[in-house]
Every structure is written in C-alpha cells, then in structure tokens.
C-alpha cells in the first residue's frame, strides 16, 4: 500500500493525438489500477444535429471523427432510410461498400503505424503511413478529398465511380496488397515486435463479454461479431468474405486481426468492382416520413449505432449516437492490470481508441465538472425508471 503511486497520462501527452486523461495507479513498475477521465472532446453533435436538416447532418456526423468519417454518415443515412422506408439503388449500395472498405484499410494501417510508434519502433510507423497514402490517393480520386469523403446522402451516394477509374483502383489495390503482405510478414516475423506484443494486454473472452466490446477488439478475444455478417448493410450480403478472429486476446492478436482484415477488405472491393451494376446512384427523396429508425454500420473500430426519430419535418427531433470506442475504452480497466507502465501505453492504444467519437456528454458548473461518473449513472437509472416504470418491478 505504501508504495502506491499515480502516473498521469494526459490530457496532453506525447503518446496521444487527442486530449484525454488516464490515471494509472502503479506499485513500482506494475499497474494495479486505471481511472479513465473523458470529456475533453465533447462538442455537442447530438444537440447541433437537432437543428440541422437531413441534407446537412451527414456533413456534421462526418466530423465526429476524421478516421471513421464514412462510418458515421453511413450509419446515419441507414437510420434515416430505416425510419422513412427509403429504397437505395443497388449501384449506390456497392459504392458505399467500396468506400467503407477503403476506409477500413486506411484506418487499420494507421493504427498499425501508431502501434509501432508506441513501442518505439518508428520504422513501422513510417512504413505503414507511407502505404496508407496509396489509399488516400484513391479517396482523392473517387471523392475529391483525402479525408471527410462526403459520399453518403439519404437515398444514395453523391458521386459515382467512373469506368475509367476502375483500372486505376485495381492497380492501386494490387500495390496495397503486395505492400501489406510484405508488411504482415515483416511484423509477424520480427522477434522484437513479438516480444513486445505477445501476451501483453490480454483481454479474456469473459472480460470481453462483460465489457461488451465490439469490433476488432472483440474479434481478437474470440468473439465472432461483425455487423457486416450479423446484420448486413449495403452490399455485404452479396459478397463472399471471411470474418477474422483469434482467441488469444493480446495485442498481437489485435494486430493480426487488423492486418488480415486489410486483405479481406481488398477482396471485398475487388468483388464489388466486378459485380457493380449500372444504374442510378441515388433515389430522389422528397420528404422524410414520421417514424424512428436505427442504423448500424461496422466502423473500423466496431459497431457504430445511430438512432433517428423524425416527425415529418426536415429536421430530426432526436438523434442519438453510440460509437464503438465508448465500449472498447472501458475494457482497458482490466486489460492493463498487471503489466508494466511501458506496456500500459500500448495496451491503452491497442483498442484503437477514438475519443472524439466517444465524447457524448459533459456537464459543467462555473468551469468545473458537475457530475462524477457514478452520479451520471444514478441519473441515468433515475431517468430510465421514470420512462419505463414497468421495468422496475
């Protein structure tokens, strides 16, 4: 007890791109506890969304996160299409799938690079980010921007993939595949990387279920969940691909899941380019019928969930977002316990945390935080009891 110390990580820390605060409770070199303090990135998207029209909101939710900037608008338009029963042309479904998978490749390579950076292996960082530029070039060609693609709209997509672009995409995919292949072999054969990643930050299957983790974090712990398989959106049900999962739950398994998913994504894009039918890319939407709908999309980090309730006007009366990192970050509470401080930073980053996605609320009074986590939980219970009194019995 006597030599218990606290090591703060954040809010501005060289390891992190974004402001967030972790309080590591350590005994000597060993981490024995972790407190997570979020809320530095809250911008009030849900509030602003209730003042914007359905045409504008995809641009807003895109800016929740710059890395999953296709998943959020995709989940949003799926929710609106669900609420108002809007049909989407088949070509648009395929284009959405292609963009979604390109985003996954770029995000996974980005994570690998950062993981290399966190273990002090900057060569991996530089390599991964160099090959990621190929994907960004494709984005620039198809959508006109390196990030924030603005492809989704209610009823379809905004831009078509032109026939003359397809050979260029295929050429770039071949190059990405060879580079990722080389990269995978280099990583999985490197004894230094194996020593740093193997049996570090183990999240057991039971803990993964308890903390309800999603995405690659869950798949690395032996839980085979993927919205693309379980509840296929876009064109995923028309395409042949495999879900990658491992049972180990350590950081190496998470890296392997992400690396192998890049190949699956390349496979999906190739099939999409082949199967894509001709036709319109959007259906005209004149009004959004009253109703409520949900949209689920598999972001690179896991399941993104959007809920929209419309009342027949052009502005939603409620828009609720749940991002995958919200579930994944909390699992760090168990994943870092028992490892050294040097490994802790890697464990914290292993879930591919995205804090800007996560921050859904903050409460202040006179510049100070008003509620603690426990108080918020109690408030939430109180509200649920008020809304659904029959559940209480």
């Amino acid at each position, binding site marked *: 007890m006597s030599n218990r110390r606290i090591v703060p990580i954040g*809010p*501005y*820390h*060289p390891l992190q*791109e*974004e*402001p967030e605060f972790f309080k590591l409770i350590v005994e000597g070199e060993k981490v024995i506890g972790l407190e997570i303090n979020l*809320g*530095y*990135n*809250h*911008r*009030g998207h849900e*509030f*602003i969304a209730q*003042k914007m029209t359905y045409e504008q909101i995809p*641009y*807003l939710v895109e*800016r*929740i*996160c*710059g*890395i999953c*900037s296709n998943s959020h608008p995709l989940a949003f338009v799926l929710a609106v299409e669900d609420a108002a029963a809007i049909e989407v042309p088949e070509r648009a479904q395929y284009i959405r799938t292609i963009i979604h998978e390109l985003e996954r490749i770029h995000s996974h390579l*980005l994570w690998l*690079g950062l993981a290399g950076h966190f273990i002090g292996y900057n060569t991996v*960082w*530089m390599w991964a*980010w*160099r090959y990621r*530029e190929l994907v*960004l070039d494709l984005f620039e060609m198809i959508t006109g921007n*390196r*990030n*924030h693609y603005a492809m989704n709209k209610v009823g379809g997509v905004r831009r078509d993939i032109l026939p003359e672009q397809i050979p260029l995409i295929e050429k770039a995919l071949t190059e990405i595949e060879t580079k990722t292949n080389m990269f995978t072999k280099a990583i999985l054969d490197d004894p230094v990387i194996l020593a740093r990643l193997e049996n570090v930050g183990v999240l057991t299957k039971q803990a993964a279920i308890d903390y309800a983790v999603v995405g690659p974090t869950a798949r690395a712990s032996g839980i085979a969940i993927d919205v693309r398989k379980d509840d296929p959106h876009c064109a995923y049900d028309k395409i042949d691909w495999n879900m990658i999962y491992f049972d180990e739950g350590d950081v190496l398994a998470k890296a392997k899941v992400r690396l192998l998913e890049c190949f699956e994504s390349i496979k999906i894009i190739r099939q999409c380019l082949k199967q894509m039918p001709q036709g319109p890319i959007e259906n005209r939407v004149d009004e959004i019928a009253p109703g409520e709908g949900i949209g689920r999309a598999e972001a690179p980090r896991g399941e993104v969930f959007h809920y929209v309730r419309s009342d027949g006007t052009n502005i939603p009366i409620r828009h609720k977002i749940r991002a995958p990192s919200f579930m994944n970050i909390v699992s760090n509470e168990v994943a870092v316990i028992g490892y050294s401080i040097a490994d802790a930073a890697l464990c914290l980053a292993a879930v591919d945390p*995205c804090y*800007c996605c996560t*921050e859904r609320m*903050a409460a*202040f009074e006179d*510049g100070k*935080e008003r509620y603690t986590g426990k108080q918020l939980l109690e408030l939430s219970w109180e509200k649920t009891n008020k809304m659904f009194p029959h559940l209480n019995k």
Partner: protein
Amino acid sequence: MKDFRIWGLKKSPWVFHVAAASCNNCDIEILAALTPRFDVERFGIVLVGSPRHADALLVTGVINRKTLPRVIQVYQQTPKPCLVIGVGTCSCSKHMFEDSYNVVGPYDKHIPVDVYIPGCPPKPEAIILGVVKALQKL
C-alpha cells in the same frame, strides 16, 4: 538579444501538437506531413513531446469548456517567442460547431494565433505552406 532568439526560432522549428476537441483529422494530416510522402523531418521539423521544448504550437480543433484551461496552460508553458499555427477551419473559426453549448470559441479569442490554415482538413501541402509562411513572418 531578441533578434538572436528569433534567429534560433527560424532554424529547424520543433513543433508541439495541441488538439482541443478536434475530430482527429487535422491531427492525422499533421502526422502525414511528417511521414515519408511529405517528410518535413528532413527540414528539421520534429514533433516533440512537451510544450517546453517547442518553438511552435500546431493547434487543431475548436476549444471547449474542458480543454480551455489546459490549452491556455500549454501556451503559457511554451517558451516565448513562439509561433502558434492554427490548422484547420475549426481552429480559425468555430466551423459547424457555432451553435454548440460546449464550444467556447476559436483559438484567437484566447491565445494569439500567427498563421491560419483553413481547410477541413487542410492537405499536408497546405500545412507545410502554413509553417513556411509562419517562418517567413519572423
């Protein structure tokens, strides 16, 4: 003596990256500018881990109520004279978060900003141009 310090600032500026409620996108474009395609490290521009080592601050995102005191603290810790370079539309104005209850305004309301780089996100080329303009300003 002041001229000497500015002369020191001009050569190989070390940058510290401050993200106040950003969407991560300008941040990854800053990192992309450091990696092989653009490789600003060959000019001696290095990302450092502490504001106390920095010559320039690359600020991104809008400031919200929780990050405001921290951002001001980071600015105070940076040795003066220093450059503050606003990357992205959020740091130049409030972008689309104008109506938000938690956003307390763009950077130049709270700390002096030398160069604004608009764009959502600005391309790495634009970020490099912004840094060059900031250095020319000295």
